[in-house]
């Protein structure tokens, strides 16, 4: 740790807490199971996704991809493609405008870019991965563009590539940081403690490559307006990331670029940074002078949008006679590339989950010649919890102990590696509630059967950190008693618009119908990107900051007026309710916003504010946790696995909307079921080619793979977060794969340490 950060930390620790959000226990709209406000648009087909805007004179683009992993383009033969029907232009490195190198996403905050890879776009003949876009074809119709792209003939000069994860493991290096945290942590001598521990387990766990496969493939429309401003309709989780990155690449000012994405058809991290497709679409619009639409094909998504890294993880746990941990080792390797900086943080959960006398935590990363790996729903935590929570289960069986009990006795009083206090942690309560709901019973392996089907139950802990980023929000409250909240937030199905309307209505004491929320457009104030499950709390903090300003303005206006019931009061003594400001002590004493504005002869009051720096995250150990319970059936003849029962019991602060929250938890668990049992991106190590770029062959769980998933939650507010809430978009996937693998062990007595657990592994 540098001296400066050490000083910073001491300062932060000494800082007094902020006052808890006054809405932390509010129950008017917050906490209600309100239907999604955009439901009607979504069930009628009216919700417009990014490729669905009609623009005059629009043309279509398609990409051609490299078929080698590394080397150079020797020769391009474009004549057949150029002569194909409808082709307007083909842009390759030979005729592309010279562009600036895209600036990489930077986890430290608002950097100048948000690119997924810092490779120059169509700059020269160099190839860095199999599937790299080598040309963009623009034509009058989609069919023409797609066909012409297949007619491009390329000769390559192949270079030496590094493709095999297993064969190159020894080349893995310890990165300087992992998402701004140290890559290695040593507390005591974990290896020595392990050796002398009364009970221990020590194994390797493997996870494969995964792809997000949001059902909406990445799509972009780019159009230059007459005033030179660029509009990009882009399926993105980060509007400002798009404006900054594109502006940087095309030597524009960020405010000359407008990014629009009111509806995004799922992202899961895959739309979190800016990939080649967005910039190529802009390039095509620039070089043709026409609006261009680029719908990536499903194959295109696999070729040019990265997914989750493969990993090899070692987890070793040593415990004393009573099961108390004396040693925890969690180390391993993930893959990344030379063109990004994302050693996936699989070791983050273990930093916060269990008390132990000693720790060794260490991450290494290995560069391969592939498309950049990227965030995929709970990056790090999804694969990390698979390894840890499998290992805990192994130890529990070895010790003949109920795995719930083993976790209970190792629950730490404070953060085991940071040694800070937890802001809000009620994991054991989540376990107790979950166990009751699930009717949990710890039975010996292979002891339950129904004909050919072996039955088993498994549990695992879910964990995801709390992130918050400063967010800017603008609010206008009008003389007719309506309010508009504006923030460049994102709606990919998390329920952002719904929940923030509930929040805003309560914040102002207005009926929810009187409030509207504008989002999905970078011409609105910069809220936060949708990632790291931060958006709900970040935007909430932005709204409360802006609301506070608006309310203060109202108070000033009213209290200036001698006739106002608020005249003699202090701002601290009033609260927003019943459509205005009223005395906290006497709710008859006050004025509505309508009256205040009428009296002052004003049409509206408007304020913009940015929420504070998230120092609470440094002061406290802030995480969400949960307990996953599942039951599986494994066919003894065929090895087929069916998940048949699920209870997810979560401790994630306050639940703002039980309906949308339940969907979020379930969605994560469903993706976790895929991760555990069916999903894997096939990467041919001979040439770096992804071999199943298709939803027919990459097996996302179907309806029949998913049981009824019951969700319960503690609903205990965290006093240190806006509204007492935590983000919940990612935690559902964590622990899920381990719970399934553990249940499979309980059913069959077979411990599978490599995902996905396909039936061949159980035969």
């Amino acid at each position, binding site marked *: 740790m540098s001296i400066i950060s050490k000083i910073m930390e001491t300062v932060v620790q000494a800082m007094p807490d902020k006052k808890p959000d006054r809405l932390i226990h509010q129950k008017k709209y917050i906490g209600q199971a309100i239907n999604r406000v955009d439901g009607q648009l979504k069930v009628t087909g009216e919700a417009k996704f990014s490729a669905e805007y009609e623009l005059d004179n629009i043309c279509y683009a398609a990409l051609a991809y490299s*078929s080698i992993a590394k080397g150079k383009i020797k020769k391009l033969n474009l004549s057949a493609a150029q002569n194909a029907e409808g082709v307007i232009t083909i842009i390759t490195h030979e005729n592309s405008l010279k562009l600036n190198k895209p600036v990489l996403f930077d986890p430290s905050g608002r950097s100048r870019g948000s690119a997924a890879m810092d490779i120059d776009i169509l700059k020269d003949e160099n190839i860095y991965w199999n599937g790299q876009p080598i040309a963009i074809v623009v034509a009058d119709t989609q069919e023409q563009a797609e*066909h012409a792209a297949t007619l491009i003939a390329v000769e390559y000069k192949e270079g030496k590539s590094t493709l095999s994860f297993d064969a190159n493991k020894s080349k893995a290096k310890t990165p300087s940081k992992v998402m701004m945290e140290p890559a290695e942590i040593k507390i005591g001598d974990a290896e020595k403690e392990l050796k002398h521990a009364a009970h221990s387990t020590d194994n390797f766990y493997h996870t494969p490559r995964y792809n997000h496969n949001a059902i909406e493939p990445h799509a972009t429309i780019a159009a230059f307006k007459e005033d030179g401003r660029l509009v990009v309709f882009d399926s993105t989780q980060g509007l400002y990331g798009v404006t900054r990155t594109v502006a940087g690449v095309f030597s524009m000012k960020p405010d000359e670029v407008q990014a629009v994405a009111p509806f995004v058809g799922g992202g899961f991290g895959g739309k979190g940074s800016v990939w080649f497709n967005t910039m190529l679409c802009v390039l095509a619009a620039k070089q043709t002078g026409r609006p261009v639409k680029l719908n990536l094909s499903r194959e295109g998504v696999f070729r040019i949008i990265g997914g989750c890294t493969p990993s090899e993880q070692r987890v070793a746990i040593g415990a004393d006679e009573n099961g108390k941990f004396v040693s925890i080792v969690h180390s391993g390797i993930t893959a990344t590339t030379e063109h990004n900086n994302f050693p996936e943080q699989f070791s983050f959960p273990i930093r916060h989950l269990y008390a132990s006398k000693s720790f060794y935590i260490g991450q290494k990363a290995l560069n391969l010649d592939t498309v950049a790996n990227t965030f995929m729903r709970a990056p790090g935590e999804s694969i990390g919890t698979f390894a840890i929570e499998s290992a805990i289960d192994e130890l529990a069986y070895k010790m003949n102990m109920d795995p719930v009990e083993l976790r209970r006795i190792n629950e730490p009083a404070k953060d085991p590696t940071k040694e800070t206090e937890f802001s809000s942690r009620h994991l054991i309560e989540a376990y107790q509630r979950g166990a009751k709901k699930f009717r949990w019973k710890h039975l010996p392996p292979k002891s339950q059967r129904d004909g050919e089907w072996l039955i088993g139950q498994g549990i695992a802990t879910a964990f995801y950190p709390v992130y918050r980023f400063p967010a800017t929000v603008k609010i206008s409250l009008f003389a007719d008693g309506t309010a508009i909240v504006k923030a460049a937030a994102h709606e990919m199905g998390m329920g952002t618009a719904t929940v923030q309307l509930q929040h805003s209505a309560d914040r102002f004491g207005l009926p929810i119908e009187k409030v509207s929320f504008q989002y999905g457009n970078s011409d609105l104030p910069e809220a936060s990107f949708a990632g790291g499950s931060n958006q709900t709390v970040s935007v909430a903090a932005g709204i409360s900051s802006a609301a506070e300003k608006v309310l203060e303005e109202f108070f000033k206006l009213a209290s200036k007026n001698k006739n106002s019931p608020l005249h003699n009061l202090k701002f601290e003594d009033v609260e927003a309710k019943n459509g205005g400001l009223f005395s906290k002590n006497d709710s008859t004493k006050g004025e509505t916003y309508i009256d205040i504005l009428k009296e002052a002869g004003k049409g509206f009051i408007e304020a913009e504010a940015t929420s504070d720096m998230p120092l609470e995250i440094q002061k406290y150990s802030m995480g969400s946790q949960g307990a996953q319970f599942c039951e599986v059936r494994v066919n003894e003849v*065929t090895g087929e696995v069916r998940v048949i029962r699920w209870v997810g019991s979560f401790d994630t602060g306050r639940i703002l909307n039980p309906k949308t929250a339940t969907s979020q938890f379930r969605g994560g668990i469903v993706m976790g079921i895929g991760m555990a049992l*069916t999903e894997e991106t096939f990467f041919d190590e*001979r040439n770096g*080619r992804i*071999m199943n770029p298709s939803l027919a062959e990459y097996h996302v769980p179907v309806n029949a793979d998913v049981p009824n998933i019951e969700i319960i939650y503690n609903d205990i507010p965290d006093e240190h977060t806006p509204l007492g809430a935590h983000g919940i978009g990612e935690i559902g996937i964590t622990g899920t794969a381990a719970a399934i693998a553990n249940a499979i062990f309980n059913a069959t007595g077979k411990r599978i340490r490599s995902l996905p657990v396909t039936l061949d592994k159980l035969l």
Partner: protein
Amino acid sequence: MKLFTYKQADGVDEAIKAASTKTISKFIGGGTNLVDLMRENIEQPDTVIDVTHLPLTDVEELEDGSIKIGSLVRNSHLAANKIIREKFPVLSQAILNGASGQLRNMATTGGNIMQRTRCYYFYDETACCNKRNPGSGCDAIDGYNRIHAILGTSFTCIATHPSDMCVAMAMLGAKIIVEGKNGEREIAFTDFHKLPGDTPNIETVLQQGELITSVVIPPQDFTKNSLYRKVRDRASYAFALVSVAAALEVENGSIKNVRIALGGVAHKPWRAFKAENYLMNKEVTEENFMLAAEEELKDAKGFEHNSFKIGLAKRTMVSVLKELV
């Protein structure tokens, strides 16, 4: 997808005539395989002949009790057909285990028979594939071959035929009726698809320009006791890793009649003649079922990722036969 000429045929003769030209032509039924392959540039016909308007959409019972299925009967209609459900439940089951409700509404009987492999390397234009590009090699043999064949493979190709319906039809001893410019011919279902040999690009005995007009299933009572079991990577909407279609008739504890076919294991729906022969007149015991399965898979050959299919096929076969007892 390349540009092509579209022709809609209203009669069988017209369809055959349209297909008897020098240029490459393809019939289109539901399009669920052809459109996909054309989009992937694997099929590049100059002419596409729409056969969905042909009057081949009926399932009829012939005088001798055979069931004639028009080649344009949609998969879902065939699966829901009352006669089929009663006489050949295995065929309904096989169809219902394939693809999805939507695809079954589109897929035709003829198109299902003619669908091509799902081999990853066949689908990727940049890969070496003897089926797509004869003589180029086979990237699957040393590549991702988890879904590939274990029976009847060759050095040139180890792909499977992906159909479920065809497995049941092969088991039922169906015949395929085709019509071309030289008239009509009848082909045993089990002879229709070919093993890869040296020419994996030639998948069936159908000649260019010939049209499948119907499938005829001969009368047989014992196939009422039949079953289709599909083992796959998802609970639904996934191709078979291994599937088994079987029918069994037992009399006084011994096997009077038995039929078995396997899917997901070969370049064609694999009729398990060896196992059938082994079982005829044998006592109904699990051990005999296992020995029959061993017999059938004696020559099976696994590759890096698909060896599990050998054991899986045996176990699934035994389990299905047990269920039929």
